[in-house]
Each structure stands twice: as C-alpha cells, then as structure tokens.
C-alpha cells in the first residue's frame, strides 16, 4: 500500500502528462501481481465497495474528534478523505505491518455494512498518513486525479513495450486484477481471447492531408461527417456502442444499441436527424444538436423522439465472426454495401463515396459543400487494411477550411505545468458596434494554442508590458493586440454575454500590424452562426 500511496501522491502533484505516464509505467512494471492490477482498477474508477461510503468515514471520525474541530478541519482541507487521513490518531505502540493493495481490496470486498466500521478502522491503524489517504480514496472510489482510462492504457503499453492498440483491444472484457493481461504483456503469454465478447476494437484514424494532391485511382473519397465517431458491436446477442475513446455509450444511445441484431462490428459516425439541415431527406443536424444528447446517462422519451440518433457507416471490421481488418478497404466496402440493406434503415445508412474523377473535381465538390453536418473530406487508400491508430499513408482527413475572424486580446491567464510562468491562455473579444462610436469589446472565446514557443515568449512579454489590471492569475490588457482566430463553427449560446460560443478556437496569426479598432464586430461572428 505504501508504493500505491506514493504513486497517488506523485500523480496528484505532477502536472505533465509524460511524467504521469512515466510514474504509472514504472509502478506497473515494478509492482507484483495482483497489486498492480488492483491499483490500475482503482485509478481508473474500476472498483466499487458498496459497504464503504463517505458517511462511514464521517461516523468513524465522529467517535474520535470533537464535531466542531472536525467541521473546522474538513472545511479547511476541503476533502473528507484527506481530512480524515490527517486527523486519524496515530497508534500509541508500534504499527502493524501495512497491508498490500490486494489485501485491502479483498478485505473490503468481503465487508458488509455491519463489519465495515471495524474493518476500516483496522486498516487505517496499519497505515501512515499518506497510506490512509490512499486507502480512503480507494475505498470510496473517488480518485479524481486526472488519470483517464486512455492514459492508463498508454502507460500500460509503455511499461511493457507493447502496442497501445493491442492493450486497448485486450483490455476490454478483462476484469481486475487483469492477471491475463499482465501475463501477456509482461511475460509474453498468449493474449486474452476476445472474439466471443462485445469488445471495443481500436479505431483506425487519419492524418491531416498535407500534400497538394492525391491520385484518386489509389484513394477513394468520402464525406467526413461532423458527429461522433462510434463503433457498434453485436456478438452473442449483446450490443455495445463505443465512443472513440472506447467508452461504452450504449445507455446514451439506446435506440442504436437496440437496432443492431446482425453479428458484426461497424465503424461509423453517430448523428441526429435534422430536418432543417443538409437538404437531403432525413439529413443530419449540426453537431450542436447532437451535443444535447451527449453526456446523458439516461435518455427521456421526448429526447428520443425529438433528436433521434442514427449511424452513417464508414467501415465493417468483423462480420459473422470473420475478421475483415486485414482486407483491403475496397473489399470491406463491398461487404459493407452488401450488409447495409439488411440493417434497420431508420438507424443505419452508408456514407456515400464521393464521385470525383480527379483531385481538382474533388476540391471543387469540397469547396461547394455547405451542409453543416459535413466537416470535410476523408481520403482512404483503396488497398488499406483496417489498422489501429494513425498509420502514415493510408487515410487522410481534409477538413473544410476553418472560419477566421479578427479579435482583440482582452485578458491573459497563466498556464499550468511548464507554462506556469507564461501568460498563455488568452481571452479575446469582438466589438459590439462601431469602436469609433464608443462600442465595447465583448469576450467571444478563449484559446491557448496555435502559436509557436517563440510566439509564446513574445506574447508573454507583450501581456506583461500592456497590463492594465490584475485579478489573481489573470491580467487585463490594454486591448491593443489583434489575433486572427481560426475556429470550426460558431453557435448561439445563452451562457455567454456575447451570445455566441465558438467551437475549437485557436490562434491562427498574431496581427501586431492591425489596429484594434479594425478588428471584427460581433455581428460578423453572429452571421456565421450555423444553427
């Protein structure tokens, strides 16, 4: 438990992703089974002990400290588990040896509501302050230390020098403490079997198109839809919908999960129906409409009726237990075209291949695409297998050109980690009228990338020299610098004073040459609203 506690502390205090990965990888490599597997589950919220809740911690503390002192302490520390770990009385005699992570997990699993107070007390008595913190966090399942499932998988891959795609694939369907998974990665044993479970297969991803042109006899073009990339898996009577990160979102889109009854693994774009978009019958609404349904654990009937989801299919990975991922894209596409008529037509259609003979034709078609549900064009090598991740030369995304607007820098905030001494997060605004007639700037967005390290140094100096006010970590500038801001789309928003919210804004250019009063007005931004 000491090593796990030290890991937890280091992860909490390490801002950089790479350093977090290194810490986690080292722990996984050097900790024996089954401790490392349980630790991994604890870090990725995979453990649940119904008998141990925050209320149990409070009642244990109530027996040990005056309630007023507890409340004052708890309010100061801000976290019940941490406060209890600090206040827990040290044993008078020698401490019993600290339990291992596995012992803690097994003990807590066997705990009932009746035995929980005594068992937790015994465990707390055997640990030092950091150990107690780790125990209470693990037991109540509230780590919140910024370790995503993805980060854990990347660390796992790094620890044992295996590919993260394999880890993604084998991970699903394995239960903590992941002995088979560790046996495969650390000892070279056979990987876990995956074909009979509704598992996630890592997505094939695309590089941004950088070359001037591609030969369309080698590459096929299709639309890139602006929804969320999903994988739908049906095997042995079970269906799962997975997001790009491999999260199971079946419950958020029950109509999709219920609609697939053919054993297969499909790759496509999840969209919601939007009558007012796209012109085509049953077209797709903009991303903003889809956003209403994301992040919901349960869906109301009204929601299902109002914004029904469907999937526009890109690819077929597995059909009837037959793995097609080694096949050429053209062959998979033919299988997909054969399959689609057998699927629920209300929930599944196929993403059309764009009929363009030459690259110039394609460029022309792309530039005319006004459908808000289209994000750009995908180019796929006709002979490409379906490989996990981003392999060079196979798939390219050619996004629609971003929208651009000139904004004025209003506020700057210090970054975090390596950027903590730099003012690197910028809030910028547009004029709410004619600046020469007394119009004001209203903030329209915030961006913290799009510039080089050299530009960051310049911007940091600029902010410091043009500060007119300070509010904690934020500086207000004299509103003299113009940014050309690039963004993907803009939407009406009630939550912002300006009434607009930009999607994916980034600094495109620093326009030190442009006077602030020549920056764009809010009405220009409003005219670009998509929905």
């Amino acid at each position, binding site marked *: 438990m000491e090593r796990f506690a030290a890991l937890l*502390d280091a992860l909490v205090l390490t801002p950089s992703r790479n350093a977090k990965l290194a810490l986690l990888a080292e722990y996984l490599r050097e900790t024996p089974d089954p401790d490392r597997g349980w630790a991994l589950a604890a870090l990725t919220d995979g453990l649940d002990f119904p008998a141990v809740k925050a209320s149990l911690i409070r009642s244990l503390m109530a027996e040990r400290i005056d309630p007023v002192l507890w409340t*004052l302490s708890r309010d100061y520390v*801000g976290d019940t588990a941490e406060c209890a770990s600090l206040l827990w009385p040290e044993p008078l005699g020698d401490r019993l040896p600290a339990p291992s992570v596995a012992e803690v997990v097994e003990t807590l699993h066997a705990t009932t509501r009746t035995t929980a107070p005594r068992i937790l007390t015994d465990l707390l008595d055997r640990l030092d302050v950091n150990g107690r913190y780790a125990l209470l966090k693990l037991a109540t399942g509230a780590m919140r230390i910024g370790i995503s499932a993805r980060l854990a998988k990347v660390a796992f891959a790094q620890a044992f020098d295996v590919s993260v795609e394999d880890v993604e694939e084998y991970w699903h369907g394995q239960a903590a403490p992941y002995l088979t998974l560790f046996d495969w990665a650390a000892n070279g044993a056979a990987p876990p079997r995956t074909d009979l479970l509704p598992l996630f297969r890592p997505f094939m991803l695309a590089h941004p198109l950088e070359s001037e042109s591609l030969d369309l006899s080698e590459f096929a073009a299709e639309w890139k839809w602006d929804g969320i990339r999903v994988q739908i898996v049906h095997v042995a009577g079970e269906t799962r919908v997975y997001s790009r990160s491999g999260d199971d979102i079946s419950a958020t889109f029950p109509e999709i999960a219920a609609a697939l009854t053919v054993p297969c693994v499909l790759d496509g774009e999840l969209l919601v129906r939007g009558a007012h978009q796209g012109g085509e019958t049953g077209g797709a609404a903009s991303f903003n409409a889809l956003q209403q349904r994301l992040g919901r654990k349960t869906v109301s009937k009204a929601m299902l009726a109002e914004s029904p989801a469907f999937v526009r299919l890109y690819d077929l990975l597995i059909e009837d237990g037959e793995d097609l991922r080694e096949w050429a894209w053209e062959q998979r596409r033919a299988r997909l075209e054969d399959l689609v008529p057998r699927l629920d037509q209300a929930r599944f259609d196929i993403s059309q291949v764009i009929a363009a003979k030459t690259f110039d034709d394609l460029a022309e078609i792309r530039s005319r695409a006004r459908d808000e549900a289209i994000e750009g064009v995908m180019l796929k090598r006709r002979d490409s297998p379906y490989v996990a991740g981003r392999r060079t030369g196979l798939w390219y995304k050619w996004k629609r050109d971003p929208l651009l607007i000139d904004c004025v820098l209003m506020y700057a905030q210090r970054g975090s980690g390596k950027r903590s001494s730099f003012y690197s997060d910028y809030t910028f605004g547009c004029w709410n009228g004619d600046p020469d007639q007394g119009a004001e700037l209203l903030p329209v967005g915030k961006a913290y990338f799009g510039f080089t390290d050299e530009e960051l140094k310049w911007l940091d100096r600029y902010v410091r020299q043009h500060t007119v006010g300070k509010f904690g970590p934020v500086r207000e500038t004299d509103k003299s610098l113009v940014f050309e801001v690039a963004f993907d789309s803009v939407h009406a928003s009630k939550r912002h004073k300006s009434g607009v919210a930009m999607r994916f804004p980034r600094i495109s250019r620093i326009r030190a040459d442009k006077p602030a009063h020549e920056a764009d007005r809010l009405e220009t931004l409003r005219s670009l609203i998509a929905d």
Partner: protein
Amino acid sequence: MAPPFSWLRPEPHGLYIVPADAWIDPARPVDLALVTHGHADHARGGHGTTVATPETIAIMGLRYGVVEAGARAVGYGDTIALRGNVKATWVPAGHVLGSAQILLEHAGERVVVTGDYKRRADPTCPPFEVTPCDVFVTEATFGLPVFRHPPIADEMAKLLKARENEQGRCVLVGAYALGKAQRVIAELREAGFTETIWLHGAMERMCRLYEDHGVDLGDLKAVAGVPKAALANSIVICPPSALNDRWSRRLPDPVTAMASGWMRVRQRARQRNVELPLIISDHADWDELTTTIRQVNPAETWVTHGREEALIRWCELNQRKARALALVGYEDEDD
C-alpha cells in the same frame, strides 16, 4: 480596582500596554514599539523607539535600510523597565534568528506574548522557553488539528532524494527569505549536504546576516549570471513568489519544491503548482500549540492570529479560559 489584565488592551493593529504607552508588534507607526521578531508583519519601520533583540534590530536595519535612531537592543533574559511600573523581558521563541516572546509584568500580573514560535529544534536560533504566566498570548497560524509537522529530517531526505532522482534538473525550493531559507540550508548541512547551495538574489543579504550572527550556512552562491548547465543537479533556494515567475526560466527544468507548513494539505500544494511539497514550518503545529498551553498552564489564553476558532474550541473542551483577539495584519500565507 481595575479588572485583571485591563492594563493590556488588544487593539485592531496591535497589543497596547496602557500604563507604559507602548505597543507590541504594532501594524502602524507608534512612539514606542516592543518587537518580537523581524518578519514584516510584526516588525514595521517608522516607530519612534523600537525595542527588540540585537538580531531583530539588525534584521530590521537590513529590511528598512536604516536602523531608527531610537532602536534599543535587549538580549535574551534581559529585563527593561517601562513607564507606569511595567517590566518587559525578552525570552527565546524558537521561531527565527532573534525571535522572542515578551514577558510583561505589572501589578503582580504576568503576561507572555509569544509573537510567532515553534517547539522543534532549529540550528539557527535558541529554543522556545516555557515561561509560567497568568495570561498567555499565543499565535495560532497552524491552529487546526490537521496540522502536524513531520520530523524535518524526513523532509530533508525527500529533498535530497528528489535531487538524486532527477538527473540533469535542479530542485528549486521556495522558502521565506527570513528564517525558513536559512533553516532549510542549515538542516541540509546537518544532513551532510556539503555542495554549493544556490540563492535567489533576494536571499543573499539575509543569509550573510545570519552568518554574521554565527550561523554557519556553508558554501552559498548567487544564481545570477550562472549558465543553466552549471546548475544541473543542484539545490536552489528562492522566495515563494519567484517559484513560478519568469526568474525561474533561467534554471534547468526545476523540480518545484516549497518549504511550508501549508504543504500538509494537498490542495494547497496543487494550487501553487508545487511538485515536491516539503512540510517545514517555523510555527508551532497543533500538538505544539496545545502542549505549550498545557505546560505554561496560564489562567487565561488569548489567541492573536491564525485559525484561532479551533484553538479556542480546544481550550473550552479542556476547561481553559480563552479568547480571540482578532488582531489584523498578521498572516503567514507562505510559511
């Protein structure tokens, strides 16, 4: 007859000794100030006469440029007579170089004003002395039971291990320029670290002052003008405000450490972007505060500043008379 202790009056900006027309650690200029120690929130410039230990007067001279003409030095254990039959004695407080408690005697009553203090050993100043009294006026900076400072040797081991593990980087320790910085350096020397310790410019003169008063700090050098590569695997000390400032960009990928009692709470470390929290404080922790009250065993305890609510609650639970003075201007956010 006047009620007991009415000759000592807590005012918002300091403790006023009525018959002597004198103040203890006043927050604004007065004619006669008795000063416990050199930290800026206790020792301010501009008084008519300042009475303090010679070390504190030297520190104030360094801080405010000139020593006021009216500065008067009193050694530990020395008693001076003030107007109105008040006697004042300076007693070691163990907080920083020159820090003292002030014992006041008047009309058969004894009051001890601690200023700031700690009970742990500190190689840079003499230890706190328990002085029996009727009224004990104590600080409560770390007056919550969550604050228990670990042994300093553990924290030094953490610091030296980080330096060892992070090859090519340096460890940058944020520490109060007066007291904390010199204690960390002295403790590093006690832990056997003999290499050069590098200083932010704001630290240099105070370290020299400590050395002039007989505190050996070993080889110290200023960071200014030294190439990045020369600072790899070194330990650098700076004021907390410089930790995330532009100044730190001249250092080789520093591991950000901070020596402070607040580092006991993770969120406080995170807020300051601290990677290596070192729980080192020059104030009494909860156990030291409560133990000291028990040992001094006063008829009344007055709490000047900090988290006084919890300490007063503890006094109530232990059937001790206590009150909060709510003095303004004392805060040790960075300690």
